[in-house]
């Protein structure tokens, strides 16, 4: 039986198990004096039976699917007498055998290879049968076991809740393990990069030019991997974005939460949130085609030098993009400040603005800081607008009228190239990713610290 069919059958079995467990519990209750005589509600008996029926079988099925190929491969390769020494050679051989089995190998195959292919097909066929048999026996057997154990004394709810708790724990672990996994994969690739480029050069180098010579006699492309211009570029663009987004977002939040009438609010808030729904590519067009030329012309009319792709254009548009984050989150937080605090301040004779400035905003500050930091991480991670509006030149500059580039943009350009995967050029992307990861981690850490400090003060 094919795996999807088996899976569907298993789901059906689980449903059946729930139904039978439920009705057996009802029957047991009827003979014993009503549902109250059961240790748990009938549905818990149903879920208990379903869990026994489905969970072990599903776990075994998942393990099977994971280890299936490796075991079959080991068996097939074990049966071949003179296999190549190198791993690459073995991979090639196994791929040939697989292709032969699938019937799409062109050319002549040796008898030995054909034997192996037959062996593989055989193993796969019997594996599938074993899988079906094992899963069905496990599912029906354990389901029947749980079904037979149903009695008014059995504490089904406690057992079900225990299993649910383990499932919840597993889900929580999944998120953590994913993070660790991503970190490790980035870390190892970065270590490979740091074997060819020293860490100090990467961290403190002031020149970024990741073009590597493809041939030994190529000129002018020695490659320079100083990440400082990228990080200053990121900082510059993000700082400009935050200069736009934080005041505008915060003030619009204050207006919406404290001053706006119901009607204005019901129109303005959704409109503002539409801004968050605009794809960043569209913001990129806007930045590159409208804002950047406008800034260049404006700067030139004032006698300043400005390139047509500038950090200012990207930062401004990114700031506009982030406004809804800041305003929407702050608005929610400000609304959550209890009315009693406002009443207290107004009752002392504060004006509306004193109430907002001295009571409401301080009370809402932890949430506002949280919203702003979310916006900062969004700004640092933003790629599309910067690609389109700020350019690709890694200039080390603090002049917002010049073109700059950011970490994320460079990661994209490094990985879309056609260089081989283990050249320092592509590996540099991982090192940049690691740096970005570490800096956002530090940022989050600081943010949590700040929020906690204010919480202590304001709670």
């Amino acid at each position, binding site marked *: 039986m094919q795996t999807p069919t088996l899976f569907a059958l298993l789901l059906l079995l689980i449903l059946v198990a729930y139904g039978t467990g439920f009705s057996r519990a009802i029957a047991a209750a009827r003979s014993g004096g009503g549902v109250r005589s059961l240790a748990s509600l009938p549905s818990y008996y149903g879920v208990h039976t379903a869990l026994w029926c489905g969970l072990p079988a599903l776990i075994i099925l998942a393990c099977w699917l994971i280890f299936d190929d490796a075991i079959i491969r080991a068996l097939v390769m074990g049966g071949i007498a003179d296999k190549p020494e190198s791993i690459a050679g073995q991979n090639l051989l196994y791929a040939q055998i697989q292709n032969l089995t699938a019937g799409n190998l062109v050319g002549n195959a040796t008898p030995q290879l054909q034997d192996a292919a037959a062996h593989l097909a055989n193993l796969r066929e019997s594996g599938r049968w074993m899988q079906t048999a094992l899963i069905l026996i496990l599912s029906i057997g354990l389901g029947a076991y749980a079904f037979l154990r149903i009695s008014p004394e059995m504490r089904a709810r406690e057992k079900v809740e225990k299993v649910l708790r383990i499932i919840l724990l597993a889900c929580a672990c999944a998120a953590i393990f994913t993070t660790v996994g991503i970190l490790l994969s980035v870390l190892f690739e970065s270590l490979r990069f740091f074997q060819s480029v020293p860490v100090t050069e990467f961290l403190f180098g002031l020149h970024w030019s990741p073009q590597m010579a493809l041939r030994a006699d190529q000129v002018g492309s020695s490659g320079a991997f100083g990440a400082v211009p990228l990080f200053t570029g990121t900082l510059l663009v993000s700082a400009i974005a935050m200069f736009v987004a934080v005041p505008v977002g915060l003030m619009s939040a204050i207006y919406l939460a404290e001053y706006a009438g119901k009607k204005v609010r019901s129109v303005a808030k959704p409109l503002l949130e539409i801004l968050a729904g605009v794809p960043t590519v569209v913001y990129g067009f806007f930045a590159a085609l409208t804002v950047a030329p406008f800034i260049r012309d404006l700067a030139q009319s004032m006698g300043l030098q400005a390139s047509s792709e500038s950090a200012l254009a990207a930062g401004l548009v990114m700031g506009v993009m982030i406004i809804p984050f800041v305003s929407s989150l702050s608005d929610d937080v400000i609304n959550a400040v209890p009315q*009693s*605090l406002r*009443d*207290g301040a*107004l*009752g*002392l*004779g504060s004006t509306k603005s004193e109430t907002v400035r001295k009571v409401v905003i301080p009370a809402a500050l932890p949430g506002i800081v949280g919203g702003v930091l979310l916006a900062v991480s969004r700004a640092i991670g933003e790629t599309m607008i910067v690609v389109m509006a700020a350019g690709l030149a890694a200039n080390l500059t603090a002049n917002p009228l010049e073109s700059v580039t950011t970490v994320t943009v460079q990661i994209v350009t490094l990985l879309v190239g056609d260089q081989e995967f283990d050249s320092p050029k592509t590996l540099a992307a991982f090192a940049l990713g690691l740096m970005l990861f570490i800096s956002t981690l530090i940022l989050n850490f600081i943010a949590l610290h700040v929020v906690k400090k204010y919480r202590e003060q304001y*709670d």
Partner: protein
Amino acid sequence: MTSMTLNAGAAVPAQDKPNSATDLSNKPATESTSVKTQEDIAETVGSPFCDEAKLRMRNVNVFYGESQAIHDVSLDIGRNQVVAMIGPSGCGKSTFLRCLNRMNDTIEGCRVEGDLTLDGEAIYGPKVDVVPLRARVGMVFQKPNPFPKSIYDNVAYGPKIHGIASRRAELDEIVENSLRRAGLWNEVKDRLDKPGTGLSGGQQQRLCIARAIAVSPEVILMDEPCSALDPIATARIEELIHELRENYTIAIVTHSMQQAARVSQRTAYFHLGKLVEVNDTETVFTNPEHDLTEAYITGRFG
């Protein structure tokens, strides 16, 4: 004075229309008392007026949108007097209290009619600025609502925004004085920089009272200030009210009739948005004039 009372009475039939609009919201209460007693509240009995009135309210009507919460209430609150307002939940006593420093302005759709004066100046006059008004008429709320600031800053907040004290030393003095008068100084003097929200419920409420008296108001409005407190904290606050009476005029809303009897000189009984009876506290609790008052204080309803 007598003509005032008559006016107040005469105005009631004219209120028929808005009255019927409130019927829906007041239905449960209406059912518990007969229609006859409902009509009996045609005019306030007792003595709603006094000679040396700090606050003077005449024919006050309050509407929340379409529904009327206060029906034609007239009442005086004398200088350095404690007036208790009692009555069943939803009878409008808190609404009435909030009219006195225009806190109802913050509620959307709330409309106040009638003449309300503080020392003869109209509270709802077109040129009145609510900010100095609220500085003169302070308020303590039902739930303690200290600001999320330090104890010191909580008390110093009012004086700062009103520019009462500019120098630190003056401010320190006001803070200490207010906390002393609120009976909280000894408990908090060593931790003035700790958050006010970290105090116990009773301490928080006394902090709120200290905060209110720090701006030296002339009148203090208290909206069930002890409803969330234990008997010990309540006793301290009642003691405080006794002390405050020497300098302030106090209007207090309370659900506890013992409290009203203990702290006030005059008691006003509200029922379904109408002022039923106002008398000396002793009279109200020993010999009420109105049947409804008697029914309420003897615990027959409400």
